[in-house]
């Protein structure tokens, strides 16, 4: 008991970082889990499974000298999991909307995903929510790329100038960039919002932020 009582508590406690809840959405098979695994453990699994409901991983990153702890929720894209995944949207700080560049339907469905997210996450103002659009699987041969960057960019600008990142979880292209861009987008939006005084305290206050920014639980504010 003596050995465990102090060391971990104190060492952990000295690191203070902003806690952000990130949700990854998109059609089944576009590579959401692969993106998460590549980002968190720099690992790619050729043999992939359908995600069961939800999966969750933590990742600490540093952006512009600020440290962040991302709590990443990977969701199951299949329709039958809808009721099981939507409860997890509430309280998100960032949403990654993903499609596969070789799958035009998954791109088309971005609209559906976006509105599903907005509805269940109960986001008050769409414009103030940091979405990032991620086009995965750019490693496919040019001939198989069915969603052009221009198309995607156009969609993003129609939807309020959302940032677009084309990635490949397989060969690790832009994965880190996508998540960094997401955090940056959050930070940018956050800076516009008036911060409460709690802001500069410990990481716990960020947990509160997570609630507060979703506005689902006014009692937290």
């Amino acid at each position: 008991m003596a050995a465990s009582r102090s060391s971990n508590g104190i060492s952990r406690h000295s690191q203070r970082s902003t806690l952000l809840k990130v949700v990854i959405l998109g059609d089944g098979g576009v590579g959401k889990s692969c993106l998460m695994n590549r980002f968190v453990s720099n690992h790619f699994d050729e043999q992939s499974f359908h995600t069961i409901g939800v999966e969750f991983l933590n990742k600490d990153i540093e952006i512009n000298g600020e440290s962040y702890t991302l709590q990443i929720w990977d969701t199951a894209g299949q329709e039958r999991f809808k009721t099981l995944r939507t409860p997890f949207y509430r309280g998100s700080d960032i949403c990654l909307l993903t499609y596969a560049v070789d799958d035009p339907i998954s791109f088309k469905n971005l609209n559906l995903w976006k509105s599903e997210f907005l509805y269940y996450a109960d986001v008050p103002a769409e414009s103030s929510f940091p979405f990032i659009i991620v086009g995965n699987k750019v490693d496919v041969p040019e001939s198989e790329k069915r969603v052009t960057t221009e198309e995607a960019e156009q969609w993003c600008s129609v939807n309020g100038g959302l940032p677009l990142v084309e990635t490949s979880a397989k060969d690790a292209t832009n994965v880190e960039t996508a998540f960094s861009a997401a955090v940056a987008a959050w930070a940018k939006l956050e800076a516009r919002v008036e911060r409460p005084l709690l802001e500069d305290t410990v990481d716990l206050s960020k947990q509160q932020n997570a609630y507060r920014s979703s506005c689902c639980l006014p009692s937290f504010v």
Partner: protein
Amino acid sequence: MDEERMWKDLYHKVVAEQEQKRQKSSDSPSSHEARLQEEDGGFFEKLGTRLADRAEEQRQEETLQPAKDEDNSCSEEEQQQQGDDGEDEAKRARYAAKESNLQRQPSRAYEPSSSPETDSETEEQETALAIVAQSVGLNIEELYTALLYITQHPIGLDVVDQVEQDAIINYLQKAFNIDDETHARVMDETRQMEAPEIHLNIEVIEAKDLVPKDANGKSDPFCVLYLESQPTKRYNTAVKPETLTPVWQEHFALPLEDPENDVLFVEVWDFDAAETVPEKINKVKTIKSVRGLVKLAKEIAVTARNGNHDNEFIGSIRIPLKDIPVVGHVNWYTLEKRGKSKLRGHIRLRMSFSSEHNAQVAFQEHRHLIRILLLHELESNKVEKYTWQLGSWPTAGSIVLMQHAAQRGLKSEIQALAKWIECSNVHQEHPLNFELFHELVQDIRASIKSGMYSDDELKQFWEATRKSLHSGLNALRKIRRLACDNKAVVKQLVAILRIISCLSSLEVPENVNLFPLKMYSWFPPEILEDDRVSILEALEFAVIRGGAEWFEYIVSNNNMESDTDEEAIKYHIKIIQLIKIDLTRASEIYEKLFIKTIDFPYTKVLYRTYEKRISDLCMVIVEDICGRLKRIEIETSENPELSLGTSLFELYLAIQRFAEFGEKVCPDEIEQMKVRNYYDWFASGVSHWLEMAVFKAIKRIDRAIEVDKLQPVDSSVQYSSSAVDTLTIFYQIKVFWTQLAWPDIEGAYAFIAKIVDDICKCCIAYVDRMSQKVDELQEIRDADSNLSRPNLFGQQYDVSVAWCYALNNIEYVRTSIEPLTKDLGFESVIEALAETKSQIEAERCQQTLELIIDNAKDTVRNKIITMQETVAKRMAPAMARYLMEGAEHQQQPDANSSNSMDRLMEYLDSNLITLHDNLSEDNFQRILMVIWEVMAEVLNQLVNSNLRRKRPPAFYSNLHQTLNNLIQFFNLGADELANVQVLERIEKTLGLYGLETGELILRYYQDRLAVQSAMQDEPYGLLTVKAYFFNDLLNLQILNARNLRAIDKKCDTYVKIRLLPEDVFIGMKTFKTNVRKETQFPLYEESFSIPLTSDQSKMKNAVIQFEIKDKDFLRTRFLSECFLSFGDIQQTDSHDGFDALPQIHMKLSRPTSESSEVIHALSKRKGDSQASSFVTKIQSKINSS
């Protein structure tokens, strides 16, 4: 026991308490609980324990298990007396009661009845007589006449006296409804009628125990039969040679003229005793040929007839005809011989009466008779429906029937057939007891099997059967109208099943359609007129139809009171419950009857019928309601849908029970059934509830913290009400989840993940609120104490017990996360995933859940540490003040040093006692560390802030002493000290500042020595020497130097030797070597012997300083230096010189400003000339070159 487990046990304690409370009574929450629950209307309890209780109640309602107190009301003895039957009956009675409880609504129409098939479908009953008039084909009067005659001339044993005869005639008159006039006329006619042609049929079967008459001890017996009225008209049997147990089996028909008075004689003779048959036969053989045998037979016959022979009489019997039962019988008779008492033997005879009527006519007549008498009975005695049995005939009736059958020569199988047909006919108008049919059908089946009926008779049988079977199937279809608590009804039910079983073993003739569709409108629509439906199929249709009708009845007779979802759900629950009751009744009462009697899976067939309907009905409503559930908008905090949740899950549980029942009843079919996926319909409802639950939970937690007085809930524990309240919420969520028993494993995983995440959120919310609350309490306390006791020294913060409880509460909630999540079934779900999906996927899911939990636990732990730091920081000002006081206090020369830190110790002591007594051990250890850290920091600041001021070394050494005391006080081990980096610094600082100047200077040199031995490179070259002690004589030999760094091209160096510290070696002269010119590798090779005092030589930390100096043209400059500690110099016993000694190589270096801590301390000592001159000297060295 480790800490973690102790806390886990606390969690389990709450669980146990909650369970206990539930068992006692769920609806009387304590006032504290009530206060909490009023906020959200007992949201969690409703869906947790109360839903569970309600589900339990409903389960009770649906089963036959007696409630506990019911059980006790019946003493054991009684129960034993009742036996199995009693139990069953009690079960059935409970059923009826339960059902009527549920059916509080107007459902009178379906009142259970004690008679099967109380159906108004059949048309209004016509009067019995009308049927008679219409349907009797032959002239009633003719039949009446025949019957009157038969009655007046009865045969056999059964009718004896005139009185009874009159009664029967009277009975017939009434039954046939004949007026007196006609009656009188018919009576007259019958008196003049000739006697009917009646025969006595006799079979002489066998004899035994006959008296032997021949020499060989055997006899050659034969029988002679005759009537008393015609003694000459004799009949005899064959002779059975040499036997005392002859078997004849010969048939005779004796015409009777006066069956009322005549007597039958049967005599047994031994043939021609003088000459045995074999002898005769032998004689005949000599005669040769068949003709001889014929002659012999004739001879025997003649002798037998005239009695004039040599035969010997064995015995005879005398049977008055009226002793023979009218239906006939088989009997052993004892032979007699007048005057002899000795046993003569026994003979067995079969006797019956018969007449020579047209069999067809007689059969028809008999049927009419049965019908007329039956209808008469039913009418005149007001016989209840479904009660008439074979045994119900009055004596008169049965006598008439028997006489008629006998006198018309109707065989028993024909009589049975007649009864079957007529009862079936009458049954349509006035139902009879099915047991009657069962009795009949058993005999008839045997007769059919042995081919005793003509095709025409078979056809008649099946046509009648069509009617009775229809009635039986209808009764089964309407089985729910039966009072299953009525034993008699159950008996009839069994009879019906037996009839069906019996019939199904027979082959239905091609030309008979047992199930015409106009009678069976309720057959499934796919059955067409020409389809041959088997009897068992028809049974199945009846059961299915019965279920369907019952379902429709329930659906249409239970109304929703209003148009709300709530009402709709209640309505559906009720329907399921009623259906479930029906199924339970089926499985517990009827199933065994069906299986035992006819091996028909009643419950299963019924379940199949209901399953589809229930699924269709419920899926629509559930998906509709769930589909309309809106995500929770926080602004409208009091959602009307919140209460809906409860009944929705009641419905869920009702369907779940229904599905579970199906799994039991038809395990092989449930996979294909729609109800199998019932949970899917509710998925979004569950999501919705969970979302609501987080919202409500956090509100409830707010409230719990608000009302928490931060006092222990009881004297044995160290946590307060809000922790218990919060865990209660979790417990309720757990109960809710456990009840759902979500069957789909992937869904279960996702929901558990959600619940775990929610619970973690709640924990964090709890922690935030709790720490906020104690902060607020502290502010209030501060304000109070400022008002009440303005302190000269400023305020002193003391840890409060309330704060300790707050911390314990948090810890308590934190440690509950893990056992709670285990209780959610997290492990078994992971196991199931590994089995049904793959190990990798299961591991990923497990990782997710564990991560969520770990994150929450860490967050809470960080919060705890933050709270502890806050408290420790609050304590800091007082600690600093008392430290300062103590340190200054010791400066006073008269100070009693042991008391100087008393106030600090007192302060720490009292606070640590509070913490120790009220915190959990783990938290106490943790805060001890935190206070220690803060303490160290305070000390550090105190020291550093005083360094600028002029403090004597005693000030610091006091503090140093205090630090050591504190280390003891906190009882810290090396591990803990190593963790506090600031401590090392303070220790060092205090050590330095507490030293006298001389010691400090020595410390400087020792530091230099340390630097020298730590050097990797040799930037200034090496100096090589040899050195030893001989007694108190220090012998040094300076050998050489190499790689000296020269300042200019000319490098003229010498070595200057100095013993340090100076104040130890006061008056000691310095030693120098000669100058070696222009070389960076000078060879000095000079020896010195330096006499020392004994004290000096024993000073192990004394240091020899070797300085390399460059003698320039004008001045001497310092190049570099090195040091040798006395401790490193050998002590030798002999004055052998340097030759045996190893060389000592020392790296040369220059002092730098970095090794300045000592210098820094010395330079603070203003006014200390020793210190300032030393500092000046060193500075000049540093700055030289």
